[in-house]
């Protein structure tokens, strides 16, 4: 069986790759040499546009287009901010990348900063990743010593300073404008857009915010050209993507896949997830981190028109919200037949309730309300009307909030009810039945008496 192309994780298993000498021996920092000495800024941007690289943080926006939008007024500094606030439940790809091969991110930051004409760049990392902060700080120090950062890099006129900033553990600070607020030292509330960060971002200056994985893909694009990168994957989803596979599979972990890989192969192939644990039946998959719609087996393996579903932006979203989902950040959560969708949804709802920033009313009030209703259902006091109420609440949150957290809280609820309504009904009618599933029985003593 053919192994997919590895771009980001090619050298991940080389011993000592976290050190600059080893990284350099594996071809590291070549893209910086190439870009700074033989390419103009516009040429680098052009290669990224040609590559078709899409943002890996969740929204999947064209990176080249985003870079092109960056306003370039005279005499105003511009900033590049790397979003390493990876907090989407089910997503842990950036952690793996930064832990194993920190210099790849730094190399990407240098090349991207050069392309955008940035002289000060930031890596905003979540507080829980403090050990990664230390790894990256060490790598940045090495890069400064070796002359890849600082004044007159490679004896050119280009200067770049790279700073790290540690968040304090808020999910909302992964939203780009909340991240910028937090970076400025304020309360991490999302800003109201427009203006977009490309016009007024960090300290009111034009700013690009990119995910770790996006930036880490840039060195390859510069080294091998955008067309080469675009030759992998599908037409609209080029290149490779890191998928954080978790849940009831035999081999959870981070996998680099060429986009366009069939979902069925990803789940059942021994090169990837290795099938469902204990030979159980697949029940549902959350394909792109907790906020994307959950899909039942028949819809995740096949699109509504019977084609095999592929791991790509366009194939996963085929069927719209009625029958599709999104690639999101690539947090691939697999559930087997023993999983309870109601319990799973309660966990998600609790998360979004806890992480809502409280700025706009639908999200602040609605997320808590949904969690309370789900809690009530779990406690065995639910009624069938509660399902309709949940549906109504999510429809009043979705699309009506300042940032995407409202949508992220609404979609899991909407999709769970859309595809698994009968399971909610069954749970409400007979809450005791959940105790027949052993792993829930041990953990929660649910129905009958409220806990």
């Amino acid at each position: 069986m053919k192994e997919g192309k590895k771009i980001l994780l090619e050298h991940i298993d080389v011993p000592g790759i976290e050190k600059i000498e080893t990284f350099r021996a594996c071809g590291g920092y070549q893209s910086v040499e190439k870009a700074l000495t033989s390419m103009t800024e516009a040429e680098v941007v052009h290669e990224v546009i040609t590559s078709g690289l899409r943002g890996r943080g969740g929204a999947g926006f064209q990176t080249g287009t985003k870079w092109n939008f960056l306003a370039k007024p005279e005499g105003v500094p511009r900033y590049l901010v790397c979003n390493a606030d990876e907090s989407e439940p089910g997503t842990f790809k950036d952690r793996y990348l930064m832990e194993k091969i920190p210099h790849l991110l730094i190399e990407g930051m240098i090349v991207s900063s050069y392309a955008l004409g940035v002289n000060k760049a930031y890596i905003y990392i979540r507080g829980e990743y403090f050990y990664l902060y230390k790894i990256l700080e060490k790598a940045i120090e090495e890069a400064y010593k070796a002359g890849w950062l600082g004044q007159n890099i490679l004896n050119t006129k280009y200067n770049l300073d790279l700073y790290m900033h540690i968040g304090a553990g808020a999910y909302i600070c992964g939203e780009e404008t909340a991240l910028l607020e937090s970076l400025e030292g304020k309360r991490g509330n999302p800003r109201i857009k427009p203006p977009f960060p490309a016009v007024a971002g960090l300290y009111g200056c034009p700013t690009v915010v990119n995910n770790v994985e996006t930036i880490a893909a840039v060195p390859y694009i510069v080294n091998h050209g955008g067309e080469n990168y675009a030759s992998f994957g599908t037409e609209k989803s080029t290149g490779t993507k890191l998928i954080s596979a978790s849940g009831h599979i035999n081999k959870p972990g981070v996998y680099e896949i060429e986009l366009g890989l069939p979902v069925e192969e990803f789940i059942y192939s021994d090169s990837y997830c290795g099938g469902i644990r204990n030979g159980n039946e697949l029940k549902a998959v959350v394909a792109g981190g907790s906020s994307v719609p959950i899909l039942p087996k028949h819809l995740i393996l096949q699109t509504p028109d019977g084609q095999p579903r592929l791991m790509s932006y366009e194939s996963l979203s085929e069927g719209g919200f009625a029958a599709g989902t999104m690639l999101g950040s690539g947090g691939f959560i697999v559930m087997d037949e023993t999983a309870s969708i109601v319990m799973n949804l309660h966990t998600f709802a609790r998360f979004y309730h806890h992480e809502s920033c409280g700025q706009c009313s639908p999200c602040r009030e609605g997320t808590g309300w949904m969690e309370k209703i789900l809690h009530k259902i779990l406690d065995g006091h639910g009624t069938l009307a509660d399902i309709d109420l949940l549906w109504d609440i999510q429809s009043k949150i979705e699309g009506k909030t300042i940032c995407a957290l409202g949508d992220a809280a609404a979609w899991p609820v909407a999709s769970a009810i859309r595809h698994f309504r009968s399971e909610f009904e069954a749970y409400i009618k007979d809450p005791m039945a959940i105790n027949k599933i052993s792993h829930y029985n041990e953990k929660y003593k649910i129905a009958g008496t409220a806990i």
Partner: protein
Amino acid sequence: MPEITIDGQKIEFNQGMTILEAARSKGGDLVPPTMCYYSKLKDTGGYCRTCIVKVEAESVKNPRALPKPVASCRTLAQDGMVVKNQTSPEVLEARAGVVEFLLINHPLDCPVCDQAGECSLQDLGYEHGKMDTRYEFKRREFEQRDIGDKIKLHMNRCILCYRCVKTAEQITDGRVHGVCSRGDVAEISTYIEQAIDNDFSGNVIDVCPVGALTDKTFRFKNRVWFTKPVDAHRECPKCSGKVRLWYKGEDILRVTARKDQYGEVEEWICNECRFEKKKTADWVIEGPSKVDKHSVISANHYLAPEMKNDLSMLILNPDAGNNPGSSPFSKEQE
């Protein structure tokens, strides 16, 4: 001049105006209700989502409809924009949803709340809300707190509009209060329990759309609709000195800034005018105030006439059917 269409009416506007500002320049029913937007302050709005409208066409250049409703207070009007507010069932539905969200954790203690009668949330609830609640859980509770010696913070009633935070930021020097915690337990707070101590802090009472920030010198003195507003002024070295006095008989019960038809302060006043000058002799009386904002102070028109007949009997006064004279609306029915 660029032109925007709101609810089928064409309105000319100046470049740089938001949809809400354009609507207000025309006035009438097409103006979306607001809870957090405040025209006298910078960077307000966008939080409460009551002013959301549907954009059917973005501009002449780009006549596509926007997929999601937008906050009219934060979206710039563009030439050729077509907006639906009252005429879109989708908007009304979404707005009813927002009202419901704002009310699920609100204590609904209007009978003992000093703001009742001039409360934006009360008006909004009557105009856009539902008759009953679907929320069956415990409402969140906070301790009552004093912000300084003249202002009471009743966090239970707060809808987190951020107006007082922006007021403190923009018209007083050195903000000493802000928002702590996040999500549905976020609260307005003075840092380290520090009292607000500056000359203009009292304005946070006027900007508060609900009864979260109230005047301790007026607290529980009277219902606002029993007091009589009178415009007055005095020579004040600190502020404009233009105020509204609220009389009960011969006594001035409270002093506030003058407010316009949207309930927004016309000119900020200082604490001395607000809290210290409560004698008629302190003021030059101009005459009775006209209260434009439709609320219980000015008129009893929460319900449309046809609704008053059946709803008031059914809900507000169950006995009304047998004894029409006892209905709260009996005067108008006659």
